[in-house]
């Protein structure tokens, strides 16, 4: 007799737990306001990435096309994956002395793991993280970027 009572209590307890689960999904079924999906390509206009978002590495240039990179190569040394290559030139400055300037600051996005060591270690704060995250391209070679803009020069800080 006891086992029969057990049989039915088990049955009803089981059914009630099932109903508890169905209540949760049922609740969400009738509250479409709980939908959390973001409509990605449509919300491009309003989509604002976080200020610190690590999308890619950029070299900020000011309105006079000046950047802060001295070409010291510390970022190149610090990068664990070898995704930064710096080609430097020696150019005579106003006083006639040869000075090192960057020719190309090459950044291989395909190799970058966004560890942030280059940005952190840069002594002249020439590098920063950009918010751009749509990096998909059809050709892998397009992921190799030159960070300094053509014709840009190093910013001479007033010392």
């Amino acid at each position, binding site marked *: 007799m006891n086992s029969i009572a057990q049989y039915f209590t*088990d049955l009803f*307890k089981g059914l009630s*737990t099932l109903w508890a689960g169905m209540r949760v*999904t049922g609740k969400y079924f009738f509250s479409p306001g709980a939908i959390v999906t973001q409509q990605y390509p449509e919300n491009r206009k309003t989509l604002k990435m976080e200020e610190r978002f*690590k999308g890619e590495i950029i070299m900020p240039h000011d309105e006079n096309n000046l950047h802060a990179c001295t070409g010291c190569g510390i970022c190149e040394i610090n990068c*664990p994956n070898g995704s930064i290559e710096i080609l430097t030139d020696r150019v005579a400055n106003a006083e006639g002395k040869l000075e090192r300037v960057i020719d190309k600051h090459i950044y291989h996005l395909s190799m970058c793991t966004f*560890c942030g*060591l280059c940005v952190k270690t840069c002594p002249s704060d020439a590098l920063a993280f950009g918010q751009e995250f749509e990096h998909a391209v059809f050709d892998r070679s397009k992921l190799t970027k030159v960070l300094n803009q053509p014709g840009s020069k190093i910013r001479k800080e007033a010392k």
Partner: protein
Amino acid sequence: MMSEEIIKDVIVGEQEDYLINLGPQHPSTHGVLRLEVCLKGETVKYLNPHIGYIHRGIEKMCEALTYQQIIHLTDRMDYLSAHINNEAVSMIVEDALQVEVPERVKYIRTILDELNRIASHQLWWCAFGMDLGALTTFFYGLRDREHILDIFEESFGSRLLHSFVCPGGLMHDVHPNFQKRTKEFIKYFRTKLPEYDQLLTGNIIFQNRSKGIGYMSRETAIGYGVTGPSGRGSGFSCDVRKIAPYGAYDKVRFNEILETEGDVFARYKVRMAEMHESLSIIEQLIDNIPEGDFTAKMKPIIKLPAGEYFRRVETARGELAVYVVSDGNKTPYRMKFRTPNFSNLFVMNEIASGYKIADLIAISGSLDLVIPDIDR
């Protein structure tokens, strides 16, 4: 309902073995793991894990990188507790150089550890539900995990692999909103956790699928080195946060969750309780973050004194031990990661043979394996 004793008949007969491969391309192996399973009918006779599909040789790579650079590799071992892995390497460097990190750093690291642990357990919960066929859990788990990832993104700029910890402290300070958003998250998640219980924990089908399945005794757990929630489900007290407190764990009160049943449901219960426990740890710390520097003074080039160093931390899956042999250079001479999943995986044959193939999926789900952590 349907409670029935487990039929554990491992009959090694003359019959032909029915060998079947689960993985590397299988929906339930959570990565490229291959389980070679021998079946008798639906019952697992034995299984044989094959790994190495994503072996990247992280230990070898470490030998060529400086300690700051190693951090970003540890992210990629157990990617679900990336922050905790980072902390292990940072602490071993701090130990070796005898650098005292600021209190603020300790607090923030501990909070992030626990947030990371919750995020990892959430992902485990939803994937575990999906392994058992409850597909909706996956989306509820991910929905709530998103809140943590948003906090991470705001502070570190990345959501999953945030090499945020560096030897001596943090890469930069947390975002000013960090405290506010974390508190919001705690409040939000406290309302969602009962839903998890209604949907899955209490469910009679789920309980029948998990109770009494994949029994692992305490001796088995210790012998195989099964740590973390999986080991604690068998009564193996192995919480490094308790044994050897690091960070701010000595300043908070929390319980080490221990269950003694040793089955899938016990491991499930440990993880669910750990989420509650982590919330309470964060709650104790979040309002008391001291002001101060976010990093200790470190030299730009870190050279560890020659010698051997050993450090353990508790990741979301168990004990991560880092063993470094330094010869005084800026790169380690030998770096060994004792990763939790490596040991957790190989207990599978012991605890899964004799159960059904459907139970095998439940068992592998309950061990919460992350395959890159095994392969390294």
